[in-house]
């Protein structure tokens, strides 16, 4: 680790934290229907949208109606995206004449983007036409993110309102998320990215003559290179802001046209955590106790910093095998030092390790370095960040409601320990809430562990593992962890574009998103009916450092108990064997 590296991480965190309050407060005003500057300008568009889709914005929904609306909306998105990929050969805006996408890959991709996972079994520039990228991927980047935010807002209403049965109107929450939050932010970030050199063009791919000709695998002379371009910046802005992470190009944010400079790197990293972090403040604002929001943000931030620094330390220390050979891996003014395999020189170790941590902490999944090439411990960090259940920031909306499920469990056990029926923000936590919270916590490890087990004992599963041994096991575990948590980042090294991984991955992504949405909304529906219990000295405070620590411990312990045996057979034994 270098002072410079630590400073870069510190500056990133400071800038992020400075933006939390203004954006979070703005979002709270948007969702509560209060006056905002943008509201005056975009109000007519909002009202027009409701008229076009035939929605009465005053119509409140119970949790079941809300859940049905989410599911209907998602199924339509899925069908549309599937059809778009399958028909792209005959559709316009396809200058490279790319063919239709195969059925299993198209299905996987459709589910992947609608579930805010953005796992990519395909390579963008060689598979998807400009039309598919813009009308399919980019639209779903907005839609899936907005759906996640809407569900969070419904959940918060469950905590705020009392003795009633409705949690809001999905179409209103969705429209407001897109119109007032995602679109304006994406516009700003996209323009900044274009200004900093990210590609935005409808032109066909360009050809460049190589300055230094080379030979390909079959020995033929190669003198020209095709440079893939396209309308990338507009998609990248929302891919980061909406914690989607699906790259325009195959190598994602490591690609120089997606992420050309350290400055774009900084901006993109900021975009990844911006909304999830600010939503904590929105939460606090909406429950009328900003301390509650800061407490959750603090819990997330502490875990992020600890694991981020661990990843940086592991990567910065380099490969012990090389050290044993007497190879100098120390960082100097001229050399980055450490483990630079799979990392871009323009980002170096701190920005690669930090990106790997935040992209997996948030369920973003875009990468600017290859996690497969990290040291075992460095690679362990992104893996466990996902295995905590995507609650350390997590996806926009989904991360916070996932964290709130942990809060409910933490409050329950802690509440018992102080001798009272547990309550959170004045709502009693009873058996129904525990049932739903337990489901929310249970589904993920069961999916991930089960599908990993299936993959390592079946022929088609093992056929894609190119690195047998603990590392290959890590790759499979990482793949299903990523899909089973709607993260979408790839460890790489695993041949994942096969019917086996496409189909079972699709299953994991569906479960992770939609099986969790239903209990989350059911929880909101149950909480909203409850009376609010007044706070007394016997009430467990949920904003104190003690509670923050307890919440972290619950998240860590549940994560560790779920995955420690699997991790022992993957990255841990790999590290011990070094």
């Amino acid at each position, binding site marked *: 680790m270098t002072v410079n590296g630590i400073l870069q991480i510190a500056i990133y965190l400071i800038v992020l934290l400075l933006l939390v309050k203004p954006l979070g407060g703005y979002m709270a005003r948007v969702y509560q229907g209060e006056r905002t500057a943008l509201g005056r300008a975009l109000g007519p568009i909002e009202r027009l949208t409701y008229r076009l889709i035939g929605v009465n914005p005053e119509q409140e929904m119970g949790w079941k109606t809300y859940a049905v609306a989410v599911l209907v909306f998602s199924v339509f998105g899925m069908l549309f995206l599937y059809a778009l990929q399958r028909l792209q050969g005959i559709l316009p805006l396809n200058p490279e004449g790319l063919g239709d996408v195969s059925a299993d890959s198209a299905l996987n991709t459709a589910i992947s983007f609608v579930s805010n996972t953005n796992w990519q079994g395909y390579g963008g520039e060689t598979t998807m036409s400009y039309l598919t990228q813009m009308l399919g991927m980019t639209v779903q980047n907005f839609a899936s993110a907005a759906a996640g935010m809407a569900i969070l807002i419904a959940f918060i209403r469950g905590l705020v309102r009392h003795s009633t049965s409705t949690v809001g109107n999905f179409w209103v929450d969705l429209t407001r998320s897109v119109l007032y939050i995602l679109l304006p932010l994406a516009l700003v970030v996209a323009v900044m990215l274009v200004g900093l050199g990210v590609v935005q063009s409808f032109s066909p791919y360009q050809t460049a003559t190589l300055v230094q000709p080379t030979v390909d695998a079959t020995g033929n002379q190669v003198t020209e290179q095709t440079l893939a371009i396209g309308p990338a910046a507009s998609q990248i802005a929302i891919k980061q802001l909406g914690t989607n992470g699906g790259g325009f190009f195959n190598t994602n944010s490591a690609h120089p046209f997606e992420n050309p400079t350290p400055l774009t790197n900084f901006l993109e990293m900021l975009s990844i955590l911006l909304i999830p972090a600010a939503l904590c403040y929105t939460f606090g604002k909406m429950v009328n106790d900003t301390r509650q929001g800061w407490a959750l943000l603090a819990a997330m931030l502490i875990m992020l910093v600890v694991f981020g620094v661990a990843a940086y330390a592991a990567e910065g220390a380099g490969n012990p095998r090389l050290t044993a050979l007497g190879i100098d891996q120390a960082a100097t003014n001229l050399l980055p030092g450490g483990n630079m395999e799979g990392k871009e020189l323009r980002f170096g170790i701190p920005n690669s390790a930090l990106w790997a941590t935040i992209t997996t902490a948030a369920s973003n999944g875009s990468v600017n370095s290859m996690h497969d090439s990290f040291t075992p411990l460095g690679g362990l960090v992104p893996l466990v960040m996902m295995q905590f259940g995507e609650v350390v920031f997590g996806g926009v909306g989904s991360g916070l409601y996932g964290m709130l499920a942990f809060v409910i469990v933490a409050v329950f056990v802690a509440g*018992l320990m102080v001798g009272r029926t547990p309550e959170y923000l004045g709502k009693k936590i009873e058996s129904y809430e525990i049932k739903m919270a337990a489901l929310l916590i249970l589904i993920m490890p069961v999916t991930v562990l089960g599908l990993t087990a299936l993959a*390592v004992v079946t022929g088609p599963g093992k056929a894609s593992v190119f690195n047998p041994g603990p590392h290959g096991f890590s790759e499979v575990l990482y793949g299903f962890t990523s899909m089973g948590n709607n993260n979408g980042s790839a460890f790489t090294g695993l041949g994942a574009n096969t019917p086996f991984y496409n189909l079972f991955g699709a299953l994991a992504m569906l479960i992770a998103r939609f099986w969790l949405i239903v209990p989350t909304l059911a929880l909101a529906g149950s909480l909203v009916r409850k009376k609010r219990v007044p706070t007394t000295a016997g009430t467990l405070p949920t904003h104190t450092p003690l509670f923050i620590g*307890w919440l972290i411990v619950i998240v860590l312990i549940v994560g560790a108990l779920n995955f*420690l*045996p699997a991790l022992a*057979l993957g990255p841990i034994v790999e590290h011990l064997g070094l």
Partner: protein
Amino acid sequence: MMQRAVADSFRKLNPRWMVRNPVMFVVEVGSLLTTALWIQALLGPGEAPAGFIGTVSLWLWFTVLFANFSEALAEGRGKAQAEALRRTRKETQARKLRQPHRDAAFDMVLSSALHQGDVFLVEGGDTIPADGEVIQGIASVDESAVTGESAPVIRESGGDRSAVTGGTRLLSDWLIIRVTANPGEGFLDRMISLIEGAKRQKTPNEIALNILLAAFTIIFLVVCMTLLPYSIYAVEAAGQGTPVTITVLIALLVCLIPTTIGGLLSAIGIAGMDRMIQRNVIAMSGRAVEAAGDVDVLLLDKTGTITLGNRQAVEFVPVRSVDVRDLAEAAQLASLADETPEGRSIVVLAKEQFGLRGRTVGAGDDMHDGMHFVPFTAQTRISGVDLNGTSIRKGAPDTMTALIQNAGNVIPPELRTSVDAIARTGGTPLVVTRNGAALGVIHLKDIVKGGINERFAHLRKMGIKTVMITGDNPLTAAAIAAEAGVDDFLAQATPEAKLKLIREYQAGGRLVAMTGDGTNDAPALAQADVAVAMNTGTQPAREAANMIDLDSNPTKLIEIVEIGKQLLMTRGSLTTFSISNDVAKYFAIIPAAFVSVYPALGALNFMHLATPQSAILSAVIFNALVIIALIPLALRGVPYRAVGAAQLLRDNLLIYGFGGLIAPFIGIKVIDMILVALNLA
């Protein structure tokens, strides 16, 4: 008791019983599986040495048995008590009256043939055959069979002392009683079944906790099940070692699932009820005990709870022209025949302050020599004495002013000042006159019980608001409330006002507890979340309540709240302990299970457990023994201290969370060392 508990723990192995507790049911299934694997290993090539499988299996059975034992032990205490009660519940003869009066004809019937609405007669020496309400007569009753209190109590028709309990014994006189409970549904029957736990239903928090524990169990089931394919893959990839055995996976599973809390959960619940019984409180349901821990508001009757039952004279305040000694003497004379505690206290005060001995009376016959006592009546609200033509009167200020004015005297202004001053401080002024002229005022004061102030301060720290209920006027009530340190008061309380107050608190999301004994308390008792009826109370009050205090001590509400809190705290703390134990067990079992495939994993065995077998065995043994070790805590409960929630959490986290993390590392290492020393590893 121990022997029976041991026998019961085997009886409870019945899967139909075990399935009620998902965590321990999984352990039982695991024990059965390992037993099968052990038999297989005995008969032919097993998956591991038969000795190892057999030992693991044995300790898994112990785990189940220990859990059953804890439950049986908790039940045992109640059972012994129930049996004692049942002995008093023997069949007796009853005189069933044809008409409800003393001399009516009667039939001799068995007590079990008495039904609701029947009327029967009991006489001195009889055992009362059924629960009922006295409709005629007054008698002293020995209720020690129910309350354990040997002093007899008075039962009479009408009023708040009309309820009798079947199984108690009449000592003298006679009573005519109307039966209020059918055979088998009486108070004693209900008590027996409650104590035995036969009708024990899971409480809301227990259900929620069970769900959480079941969720953990499912997760660990998946974790362990998927370890088999993982290890098969690892063996293929590494080209060495053997896949993990079913025995080891079952051992790991049992160690990971929360057996400590799962095994002790039902014992904790039973013990909570039992602690109530030990304090002579019968809770009608576990739900009520649990609700007691959640109480936000305590409604406390002033008299008997906050103040000593009676007011006492503390001061004589004369008007200007009168000597204080003169006033004291007059007051004493007026009170000599007054048998009320207030009257007694006036006599005592005069004696203590001025050495007055009531010299003109006491010598028995003097009383008739022109000394004539005027008793207090509800109409006049005045009492006093006529002595040799002098008439001394005392009474409440409003009636006494009328008396003074009627006698043609003026009311001295300083009299009004003293009366108001006394009322303002919460005292009761009594005006004394001689021959219609004002002498002064006696200051009667409610005496707040010693130490009650601190108790309320404690309750405040626990987050519980105390509300004093009194029939006094608001001025007096406010003064006493301030002195006792309650948070609020309800003055001039009527049953309607009480009910309304409870409803208001509940509408605000608060849980209300109250005590009561009279029939007019019944609606409020039925409305309150935790309602404690005094055993001396009326039948309607006892039926409306969800707890009955056999000692009839209103302050006990505070203890009841503490027991409720203890119950929840014990569950929460042991859950935390159980889950944090798992970390150490991972470090014992994971390296042991996979070291043959990946020798590098031996580095995780930093406890340096001797062999893979000894490591697994130590973890399993620790897991079983910790249940036994914690039985006393489960039965006794985690001690509750009246400090804020944040501090309680910090303390309990430190003890049960951090302790739970550390303890198994030490325990497993010690057991491993013993196994090595015994050459068992």
